[in-house]
């Protein structure tokens, strides 16, 4: 803990003292102290499983702490019962998955849970109030728009407004930029700055180090349920920060992150001709060669995920052909794609890749029933041996195959999914946001794994909203915009984040 400077007077809006929390024997928080001042952005960092989410859940009333106290300025010690209570105390959370009602409009959502929203007060009255709150935040957002039709950035604005409508003084942001475009991110940062200037206290959770430097005044790092350090952001170097987060010397490894060798003269693995899907994809032509990593950049909603799902047979296409190793194949469902040696590692692990209640071994076996039960009966011993080998080789933690997969960190879950498809013998890998929500250490391991796959002659298609990831991994890059592949860049030398961004937003075109 750091003692505040004498010359900067501050008052704590919020003080958490000695917070502990265990989940059925696992100590998630081991006595955490955290405080937040008015008019500051306090970043909270740590790997997945370090305890950030648990701490936030306690602060926002989702779970009670086992011990420890929460003291609010002007209120004193509080026990927060549920998220409604938290909101009433002036504590709001902008979460990764907004908890808004899609069927209601913006104004209704802002006042949701308050009596005004029940229609007792004339509509025009609370609409005017909503307008007043929204005006400084997002003057162009129509308050009568249905929330279901809004994009991620707008949803966040509505969540902020909802907190402000209750007189909120503390706003937490949980990985707010993970599905924002760079332009939207800049907008959000401006907004946070504005909230800060008006004396709110902001808790900002992120994996992204540059963001923490860009926005925060102080940073607290959690590791294994404990506070590693709590310091002024500008006094900490990025290297130090990474070391605090990962607890090891990763900075050098990350920096070296060698550019891949140009792999030429490989054979065609996957060819797309004129792939179309109504309203989503228009005439996509693309060739993916063995041994290469092809990056797909573009804004959220540009059709990248849709393309991967179409190739995999998860969604219907209504035009065009897919050629695997030169042969046209009709992939109508994921099982067809699997049989053709294609793997999809989807963007939302929890919803699209994992059966949370199953253990690691069974999740691993999900795509491998042909292999492990040709007769209908499972060859459990064989499967157990195989997954244990992957656990060793890929350093999956914890080391036990019988652990429920939902208890693993994001990075370890992702490794299990990759192991699943390696075992299936896939040669074409479609990675959709392969390291979203994964901590720096595991991210590096997964990148290395992807490079090795390419080196071994697999073909990789990588979708990522993190442009540095695309630049670090890919041999070639395609840019999608409005459902079209608008640009293919075969020589990545000289490609910068800035340039990629301009292509994606359509500011520049290269012929």
């Amino acid at each position: 803990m750091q003692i505040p400077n004498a010359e900067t007077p501050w008052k704590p809006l919020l003080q958490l003292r000695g917070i502990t929390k265990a989940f059925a024997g696992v100590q998630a928080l081991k006595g955490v102290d955290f405080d937040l001042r008015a008019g500051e952005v306090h970043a909270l960092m740590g790997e997945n499983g370090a305890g950030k989410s648990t701490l936030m859940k306690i602060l926002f009333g989702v779970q009670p702490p086992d011990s420890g106290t929460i003291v609010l300025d002007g209120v004193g010690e509080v026990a927060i019962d549920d998220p409604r209570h938290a909101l009433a105390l002036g504590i709001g959370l902008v979460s990764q998955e907004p908890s808004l009602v899609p069927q209601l409009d913006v104004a209704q959502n802002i006042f949701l849970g308050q009596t005004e929203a029940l229609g007792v007060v004339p509509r025009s009255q609370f609409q005017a109030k909503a307008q007043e709150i929204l005006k400084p935040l997002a003057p162009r957002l129509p308050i009568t728009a249905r929330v279901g039709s809004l994009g991620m950035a707008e949803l966040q604005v509505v969540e902020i407004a909802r907190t402000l409508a209750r007189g909120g003084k503390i706003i937490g942001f949980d990985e707010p930029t993970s599905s924002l475009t760079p332009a939207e991110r800049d907008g959000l940062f401006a907004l946070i700055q504005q909230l800060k200037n008006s004396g709110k206290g902001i808790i900002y959770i992120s994996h992204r180090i540059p963001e923490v430097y860009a926005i925060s005044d102080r940073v607290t790092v959690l590791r294994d349920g404990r506070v590693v350090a709590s310091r002024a952001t500008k006094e900490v170097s990025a290297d130090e920060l990474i070391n605090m987060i990962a607890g090891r010397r990763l900075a050098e490894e990350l920096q070296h992150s060698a550019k891949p060798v140009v792999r030429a003269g490989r054979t065609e693995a996957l060819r797309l001709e004129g792939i179309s899907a109504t309203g989503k994809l228009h005439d996509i032509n693309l060739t993916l060669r063995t041994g290469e990593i092809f990056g797909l950049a573009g804004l959220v909603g540009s059709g990248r995920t849709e393309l991967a799902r179409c190739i995999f047979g998860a969604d219907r296409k209504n035009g065009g052909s897919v050629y695997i190793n030169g042969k046209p194949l009709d992939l109508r469902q994921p099982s067809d794609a699997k049989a053709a040696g294609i793997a999809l590692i989807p963007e939302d692990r929890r919803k699209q890749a994992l059966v949370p209640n199953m253990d690691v071994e069974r999740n691993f076996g999900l795509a491998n029933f042909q292999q492990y039960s040709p007769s209908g009966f499972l060859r459990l011993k064989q499967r157990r041996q195989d997954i244990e080998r992957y656990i060793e080789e890929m350093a999956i933690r914890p080391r036990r195959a019988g652990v429920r997969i939902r208890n693993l960190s994001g990075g370890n879950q992702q490794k299990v999914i990759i192991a699943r498809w390696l075992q299936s013998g896939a040669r074409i890998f479609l990675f959709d946001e392969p390291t979203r929500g994964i901590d720096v250490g595991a991210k590096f391991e997964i990148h290395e794994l992807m490079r090795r796959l390419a080196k071994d002659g697999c073909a990789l298609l990588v979708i990522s909203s993190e442009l540095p990831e695309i630049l670090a991994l890919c041999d070639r890059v395609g840019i999608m915009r409005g459902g079209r592949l608008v640009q293919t860049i075969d020589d990545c030398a000289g490609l910068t984040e800035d340039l990629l961004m301009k292509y994606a937003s359509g500011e520049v075109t290269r012929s």
Partner: protein
Amino acid sequence: MTNDRVSQVAADAKTSAAPREKKVSLGWIRSASVVAGVALLFIVFSVLTNSFYAPSNLLDILLQSSINAMIAVGMTLVVMARGIDLSVGSVVGLTSMITASLLPQNFLLGVVAGIVLGVLCGLINGILIAKLKLPDFIVTLGMLSIYRGAALIFTDGKPIYGIDATFRAIFAGDVGGIPTPVILALAIALLAFLMVRYTALGEQIIAVGGNEEAARLAGINVERVKICVYAISGLLATFAGFVLIGRIGAAEPIGGTGFELQAIGAAVIGGASLFGGEGNPLGALVGALTLGAMQNGLTLLNVPSFWQLVATGVVVIVAVFADQVTRKRR
């Protein structure tokens, strides 16, 4: 063959923090509380009546529970795949009528026709749900009405008397003092348990119920899995119907009415989660036994059967409530 690809990474990789598996799960507490509940039930009834714990009455409970147990095993599999089958009671009625009508002509034909029809009923349910993507609740509720109607149309609402003696001996006799329905129910539950544990289909049922989209994206044929569980449910309802007409000695078109609630109750008490992805066919036995013991005890206490219906409903809703509470995600 693929593992050398990753060996390099392993060399670079270090441990990263991950939570440990919790030893005492809510599920375990739940199982323990079901067992405790059953024990309490037995103690209370044994104290309140002097005939409850008599060996002959305990055997009676086993016998009375066996029909529900068979259906509940099928229901457990359906619920594990995150479905529901409300048509089981009507399948009992329809298949037992067909079998009863054919038995006098040809024993084997009667049995086979009943089984084929039961599987067919399940297949229809499954195909409508999996292929046409109709809601399981509505499909099987509609089928509850259709199968029942068919059974009534078949004999114009009249029962069929005089079930073949051999048939009765097989499905409602006893072997060395143990009633065959009890043996049958045990065997069915055991087979289903082994299927869940040791076959691809069993694991796919859990996967589809646990996360359908993930199962589909892993290349599992989700439609086939769903159709399978409904077919199994139809088959097991048929066996239950055999036991029913074997015991009564006659087949009624309204036989099996209300069995669906009993079966859902037994499945949920036995640990099946209506959220899908969890359940245990052996638990269905415990569930059926719990409901059976409760009804038996209430009868001994001279509680009118109308009130027993109320009690059954209450127990089922409480069991579902307990399921919600203990499984609520975080």
